């Protein structure tokens, strides 16, 4: 199982802060995204935004990095703190 988290405008748009996903691991973050987009039209649309950032186990990462079972993957819009 993989834990998926969403933040900010993306979380609000999906009306989902987190979910668990069963995937054959290891797999790339891009494959996780692909699976998520297949959940619904809303997910497909919201996760098509190529400005989205992703983090693996709380470190910013690219979509090519490999995800293992038990990992935490987060997707969120560009940050606006400060």
């Amino acid at each position, binding site marked *: 199982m993989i834990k998926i988290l969403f933040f900010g*405008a993306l979380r609000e748009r999906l009306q989902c802060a987190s979910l668990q996903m069963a995937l054959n691991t290891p797999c790339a973050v891009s494959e996780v995204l692909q699976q998520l987009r297949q959940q619904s039209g809303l997910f497909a649309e919201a996760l098509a935004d190529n400005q989205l950032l992703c983090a693996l186990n709380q470190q910013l990462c690219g979509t090519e990095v490999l995800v293992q079972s038990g990992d935490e993957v987060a997707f969120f819009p560009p940050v606006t703190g400060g």
Partner: protein
Amino acid sequence: MPDLEMTTAQQPEQKAQQPEQKAQQPEQQQQLQPKFDIRVQNADFSLQDVYQQLAATPYCGAVVTFVGLVRDHPELQLQALELEHYPGMTEKALQQIATEAAQRFDLKAVTVIHRIGLLAPQQQIVLVGVASAHRGSAFAGAEFIMDYLKTKAPLWKKQHDAKGAAWVEAKASDQAQQQKWQ
């Protein structure tokens, strides 16, 4: 990042262990290690308290502090800013930025406080404070931390005004500002 947990406000037990861990280090090494205070909290902070803490840093001759405020605009009628963060990752990201700044600019102490939750116009939102031997590295270190915080730390602002609520869009100028350090 061995000293991450001990510096977060939410973990007082770990903070209490700090003197023990430090006591095991040789005296000289202890003096060379920069001191970090990284906090993500809803509560307000006192610039005076942070300044006093930074100014007490051994061998420092310069303290630079920056405080960011919730900014209103005459046409906006801002009611509040709502700050969302990624618990765990935000603290880690701020610690990484502070550590990189300390190495790059030879900072002796770094404090970063970022508030979350609902904040009214003119309230304090972020504080960056650094202590260093000289002013040049202190100014540069504080600016570096703010520029990186704006583009790398997982925090999101939602604006509440007369028209309703909307997420603040990331600015290209903030990206450009951060890239100048590369």
